[in-house]
């Protein structure tokens, strides 16, 4: 017979039974075909080596949930904003959930403060991400004066800013309470807990209540003619923060934290929303990138900006029909999700858990 065609020699490598006996017999006695077969086998082996995929395929359950969420949306074709970023700062890997709770509460406060100064009447209904760097956070602290606040904050007080005076008062100090029922009674917040926490999450280890905080900014003449003389009042909270311990063998590590807070609301006695926004965007020291992120928020009166530090991934999802922001570190060591439910409560779930576990907890309580 003629020499064996190269496609047949190739198939002989993979599916020898599909190749006619005649071709195989020819190959046995033909040096030219054997040489070609060797070359083909080498190419096939090289391709197999470099193209073989590892068996790791990810979390099918989570992917199915994410797919359903996308299919439920009118813009299902649009990929959610997942932004892989640079290397994760090492300290993020070591962060504890106790600190995570603080960060989450801080996120709510900073988000509330940042958003509130943008509007005269501010009552957000949904969350949205704002990418921030460490530089951006320092700039926010400097501009708002938060960075100069003492760590042992008194229930009420005031401080001077370059553009006016900032004062605050609270309905009491943050305190640990004995039960969720007590926390709900003090704050008038319902606090659903997940019926089936993720594997490795133990019992509730602490319940903390943060009473309502009212922050007032009185703009001085140095703030510029548009906002000078105006007073902006922002209310944040009350809030409940619950921490869960680990199961046996995980010691006293906090594995999961859940926060619920009434949404921040702001009102102004004078300056309009656009004037306040212009004021914020014109602050000396506001990084250009952050300014752009704020502009991209769209309607500032209805959006609660959630600072997302560089190095973390974000995923826009839905919890109970409300827009949610899932933030995770690329290595899957820690994740958090934040959303606002239709009753005006901002919810946060975070922990040293992967995104599937955090997302599932959020779905159970959302």
């Amino acid at each position, binding site marked *: 017979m003629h020499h064996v065609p*190269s*496609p*047949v*020699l*190739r*198939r002989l490598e*993979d*599916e020898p039974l*599909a190749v006619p006996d005649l071709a195989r017999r020819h190959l046995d006695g033909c040096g030219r075909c054997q040489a070609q077969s060797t070359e*083909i086998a080498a*190419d*096939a082996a*090289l*391709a*197999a*080596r*470099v*193209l*073989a*995929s*590892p*068996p*790791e*395929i*990810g979390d*099918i*359950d989570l*992917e*199915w*949930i*994410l*797919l*359903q*969420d*996308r*299919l*439920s949306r009118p813009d*299902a*074709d649009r*990929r959610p904003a*997942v932004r*892989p970023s640079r290397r994760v700062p090492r300290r993020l890997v070591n962060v504890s959930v106790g600190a995570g709770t603080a960060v989450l509460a801080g996120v709510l406060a900073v988000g509330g403060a940042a958003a509130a100064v943008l509007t005269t009447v501010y009552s957000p209904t949904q969350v949205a991400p704002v990418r921030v760097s460490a530089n951006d956070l320092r700039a926010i602290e400097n501009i708002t004066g938060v960075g100069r606040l003492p760590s042992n904050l008194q229930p009420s007080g005031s401080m001077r800013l370059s553009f006016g005076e900032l004062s605050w008062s609270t309905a009491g100090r943050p305190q640990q309470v004995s039960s969720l029922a007590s926390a709900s009674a003090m704050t008038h917040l319902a606090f659903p807990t997940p*019926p*089936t926490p*993720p*594997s490795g999450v133990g019992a509730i280890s602490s319940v903390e209540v943060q009473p309502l905080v009212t922050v007032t900014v009185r703009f001085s003449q140095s703030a510029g003619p548009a906002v000078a003389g105006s007073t902006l009042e922002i209310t944040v909270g009350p809030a409940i923060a619950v921490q869960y311990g680990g199961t046996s063998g995980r010691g006293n590590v906090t594995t999961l934290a859940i926060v619920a807070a009434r949404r921040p609301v702001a009102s102004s006695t004078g300056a309009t929303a656009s004037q306040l926004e212009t004021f914020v965007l014109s602050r000396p020291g506001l990084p250009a990138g952050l300014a752009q992120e704020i502009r991209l928020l769209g309607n500032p009166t209805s959006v609660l900006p959630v600072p997302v530090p560089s190095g973390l*991934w974000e995923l826009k999802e*839905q919890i*109970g*029909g409300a827009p949610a922001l899932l933030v995770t570190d*690329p290595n899957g060591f820690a994740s958090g999700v934040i959303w606002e439910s239709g009753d005006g409560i901002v919810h946060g779930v975070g922990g040293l858990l992967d995104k599937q576990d955090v997302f*599932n907890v959020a*779905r*159970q309580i959302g």
Partner: protein
Amino acid sequence: MEASFMTHLRSSPPGAASFSGFERFFREEYPAVVRIAFGVVGDAQAAQDVAQDVFISAFKRFPEPGESDHARAWVRAAAAHTALNAIRGERRRERRQRSAAVEVPAAGPEETVLDAESRTEVRRALSRLPRKAAAVLVLRHNGLSYAEVAEAMNVKVGHVGTMLRRAESALRKELQNAPRT
């Protein structure tokens, strides 16, 4: 606890019932689709993104795929093509970024092939191959039989060997000729 956890996962999303006819298909095909995508993009997160896009499109075509071999072949081919689109976009970006790059003489073939086994080089090589060649390579080397590759690529089974042979030869040459950057 595990059973109720899984039950909850499957039942909790709003509107889940309307996707129930698609779920089994998704769960059966997802591993193959992610593997194919990963073979091209070389990154787990990117492969999962590709898989999501593939199944979004698949749902529009086959909302109730049942045991359809056509749907099965379609998602696998779509995984290869979508992933190839992703790395071709990446290649275009790299080209723009490297417009001022300095040319470095190529190393000997053997040494180059060994270096080129890095995932990045493989992705670049794949992105330079003709689309069908790259697709048939990825599909075959992620476990599809000749018949399945033929179904996915809409070609005759007898033609798969020809395509595969040419594609593997082209891949080797691309890897050997890969510029060392």
